[in-house]
């Protein structure tokens, strides 16, 4: 259809709309919460938690069903379990740190969703990161509760809920999606249903599921940082394994995949790097080997520069991968460094190590 309209979330992110302030609840907020009990009463006591929710004053005596997500309650952090269906295997530490800080400052603004387990504990449906951040924040602030919506879900619905919730967030990686799809398949869903429910294409589903056909050792490496390894790269990896079966191929692949996951190599370099490891080109002039791009990475592991030497053309390409860099400034630094190198060479002609390509 037509281009998307305005969303409050987007306008708050872009700074057009000021984020809501928590100072004093407005009249309408007070009106909606008019009968919700005082905070002390809502906090669920550690033992039989489910019963406490059911008897919350907002549910009438003749209505046995507990309030289903209509109203957030404060739950104790130690009563909540992480969902076994949670597809995320990796969380960005910096993002989590930022979230922790904001939660320590203002509390959890959007309640998480949980379901009641038979044991009386709660299992997270949505909000694993908020939960993790709240635990971190509680060490600082001492606040031992988190606002949550309580839902009644059986295990199958909970699986769908957890996975679709994550699917609707943008930053689920391919590998995490693959694990999620595997769980759905195990729960008896057909591929058609997965496509309809998750809203991903048939190609994505099969590419992702194929990722899980990689050897366990390689999957373990990918799980370290699945952001850096897409399903497309996994397809190349499987082709390579087919081409070089046995321990030889797997070992070479493992080395290269580790380098990719650690940010030392680009994903596109997988095929060439593996083939280089397995069948190194005949020893010739050393310069020919350096014709692949190399990365310069920051402490956080993000690519800042990539350099590409082309001995044949006698050129070196320096690409500024980090968008924030001022390219002209970088060029000035390189020129200064080269100028310095040229001067040093003139002063000390014995230094044969220096090679100065233009």
């Amino acid at each position, binding site marked *: 259809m037509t281009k998307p309209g305005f969303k409050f979330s987007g306008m708050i992110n872009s700074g057009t*709309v000021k984020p809501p302030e928590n100072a004093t609840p*407005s009249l309408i907020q007070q*009106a909606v919460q008019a009968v919700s009990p005082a905070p002390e009463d809502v906090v669920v006591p550690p033992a039989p938690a489910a019963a406490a929710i059911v008897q919350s*004053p907002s549910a009438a005596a003749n209505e046995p069903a507990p309030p289903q997500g209509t109203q957030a309650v404060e739950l104790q952090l130690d009563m909540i379990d992480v969902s076994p269906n949670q597809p995320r295997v990796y969380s960005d530490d910096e993002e989590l740190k930022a979230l922790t800080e904001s939660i320590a400052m203002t509390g959890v603004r959007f309640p998480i969703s949980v379901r009641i387990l038979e044991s009386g504990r709660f299992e997270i449906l949505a909000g694993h990161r908020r939960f993790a951040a709240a635990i971190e924040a509680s060490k600082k602030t001492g606040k031992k509760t988190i606002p949550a919506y309580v839902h009644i879900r059986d295990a199958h619905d909970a699986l769908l809920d957890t996975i679709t919730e994550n699917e609707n967030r943008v930053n689920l990686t391919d590998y995490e999606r693959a694990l999620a799809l595997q769980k759905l398949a195990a729960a008896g869903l057909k591929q058609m249903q997965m496509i309809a429910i998750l809203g991903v294409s048939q190609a994505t589903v099969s590419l992702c599921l194929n990722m899980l056909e990689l050897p366990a050792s390689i999957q373990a490496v990918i799980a370290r940082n699945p952001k850096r390894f897409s399903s497309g790269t996994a397809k190349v990896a499987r082709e390579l394994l087919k081409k070089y079966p046995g321990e030889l191929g797997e070992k070479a692949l493992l080395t290269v995949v580790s380098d990719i996951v650690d940010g030392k190599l680009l994903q596109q370099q997988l095929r060439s790097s593996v083939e280089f490891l397995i069948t190194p080109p005949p020893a010739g002039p050393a310069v020919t080997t350096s014709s692949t791009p190399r990365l310069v990475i920051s402490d956080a592991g993000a690519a800042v520069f990539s350099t590409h030497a082309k001995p044949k053309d006698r050129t070196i390409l320096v690409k500024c991968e980090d968008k924030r860099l001022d390219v002209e400034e970088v060029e000035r630094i390189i020129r200064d460094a080269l100028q310095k190198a040229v001067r040093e060479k003139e002063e000390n002609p014995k230094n044969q190590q220096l090679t100065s390509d233009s």
Partner: protein
Amino acid sequence: MSTARKVPKIKPRHAIALTGFDGTPKVFRDRCNKVLGGDKTPEKPYQHRDYTPAEIRLIRLYLLSLAGAVAYPGMPPVINVRMSKGGVGKTTLATNLAVCLAHLGYRCLFIDGDPQSSATDVFGVDWTTQKITHISEVMSRVGKGPSGIQNAIIPIYPDGMLDLVAADITMENENWLLNAMSREYAFQRLLDAETEFFSQYDVIIIDSAPGASFLTTSFMMASKKLLSVVTPEPKPVAALDVLASSIAEINYNFPNRAIGPLGTHVVVNRFDQTKKPHVELLSTIASKCQGMLSDVIVRQHVGFLKENKDDPEHCGPLFENDLGAPGSRDVLDLARELVKVFDIRLAGHQAEAVLGMRIAA
């Protein structure tokens, strides 16, 4: 029974967007032909077809592999469109939402609860000539005999995809409610008495009058949550406090409602990004309604102002007239959000709520 409006013809590309199908148009057409007993023949191998709301419903159920497993859950959720300020676009939004939800395959019952009867008008029902049984009359019969709700409905779309309980000016007369016992529950009593009738729908939408009357109070008592419409202008924003007082009144006087305390979901309507005060007021609204605010902001849309009385079949500022317009896009986004917020289910299936969350590109 003849319908008040022509059956909408949904073009294939819109049908794909509405069902959330993620594949090529050709695959979509093949699938649909399989479900609907297609009209593809060897002579006409690439026969294009238009889709009706009822067909969208069938296709969606099929795509979810739920075609045979229809389970009705009982009373559908009630979306009570209510705001204590007139002229903010309650009727425009309510009627468009109803049409949009029908296009998404949900069976809708639309109750015009405003004696001004503008919603009745929008759907092309002429209350000056047609015999109208309004909702207040049906409510007054409960407990005295058959309510006759079945005869009060005017089908807008066929197959029960959109039915209307119309209104006219005589609904202003609320004298019968003055003497009724616990009149706040008058509408709830109708819902309880006719559960079987109401549960054939997936959602009930009520267009309430702006003022506080016995009738609007009675609708509020049967709603879990209101849908409040506000425009980014000073007076409507100030009227949020008036709305707050009527909500507080209900929650104070009926602390043990079986459906929980009354809440509200606030949606901003008629936003114009080129007007600076509009943008500034969004911040005020965001702070005022934190936690109950719809993420979707409905833009000022000129198509909703059009009205062509000479062409009754196309009369009305409705979603169905231009599915590609920016205003329709906003209504669709809002409808999908409401599916989640109000827990609207397709033939009782919750997987639908999950699919409804997704915004097709």
